[in-house]
């Protein structure tokens, strides 16, 4: 990844041009040709630095509910628990973290009730009772872009 790649990433992780010819637009912004801009983005994608190019949505505006859950799971049950939790398509992120609540996952669903229902189902299937449901009360920042 060179300096030009970094320039490209710093632009398109914040805002991919919504234009008829976005790579021409991007190339002009940093002084390279359309072909080079497209080739470089393709390469960054192949290398796995770019996970995807698309849209990020406000789940609330679309009428969906979202939350962060934390579960206290004994070590011998972690694998089974994670397998069952990850089978829900609304679970988009799941990590082991250094806390007595050791498994942390995000959950998006059409309603809060559906999240609660799914959590009860998970409790029943796995025998893990202690799952916290901690929805957002106030948002101060959502900005998954980085200074490269």
């Amino acid at each position, binding site marked *: 990844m060179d300096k030009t790649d970094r320039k490209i990433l710093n632009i*398109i*992780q*914040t*805002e*991919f041009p*919504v*234009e*008829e010819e*976005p790579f*021409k637009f991007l190339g002009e912004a940093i002084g390279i040709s359309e072909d080079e801009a*497209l080739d470089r983005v*393709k390469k*960054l*994608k192949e290398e796995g*630095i*770019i*996970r*995807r*190019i*698309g*849209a*990020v*949505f*406000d*789940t*609330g*505006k*679309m*009428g*969906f509910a979202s939350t*962060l859950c934390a579960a206290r799971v004994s070590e011998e049950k972690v694998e089974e628990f*994670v397998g069952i939790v*990850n089978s829900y*398509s609304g679970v*988009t*992120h*799941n*990590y082991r*973290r*250094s*806390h007595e*609540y050791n498994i*942390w*996952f995000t959950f998006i669903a059409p309603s809060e009730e559906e999240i609660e229902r799914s959590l009860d189902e998970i409790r029943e299937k796995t025998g893990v009772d202690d799952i*916290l449901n*901690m*929805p*957002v*009360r*106030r*948002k*101060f*920042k*959502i*900005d*998954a*872009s*980085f*200074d*490269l």
Partner: protein
Amino acid sequence: MLIHYDQNVQKKRDIVMLNDREKALIKYMQGDMVLTKRPFAYLANHIGTDEGEALNAIKRLKKQGVIRKVGAILRHQKAGLTENAMVVWAVPDEECERVGALFASYRDITHCYERMPPLDGKYNLYTMIHLSEKGVEKFVGKISLAAGIADFKILKSKEEFKKSSMEYY
């Protein structure tokens, strides 16, 4: 970008009703765009509209706030941001606005939310931190001093089990 509102208030009044074409567009845009010189023409063809209409629809959804951004989502570790942590803070209710706004102003803090109920009965403010070099503890110590909030916990991720994009439709 500073987004600031009470989610309960938003729930009642800000839900945007989407038509079938918008849902089709979202279904495509929640995934990975095809990399060609005219990616929005490709998208338009895919959902049965023309390029101009598709571009207008995306711009409209952005303006309405349904689309937060159109952009590249990176694998931050591969992009060189190797250090990351979730830090939870015990912030008194009356201090939350001030501390939330302060934390939001740091470039290395990518997300900052107040959550309910608080973890361990007191940790209500959540921050996600991404750094390009070691020093999460040092950074957290610095912002703890700046905010005047001494009670916090660093919850490092030990293992990634899942990381995906939501499929809404």
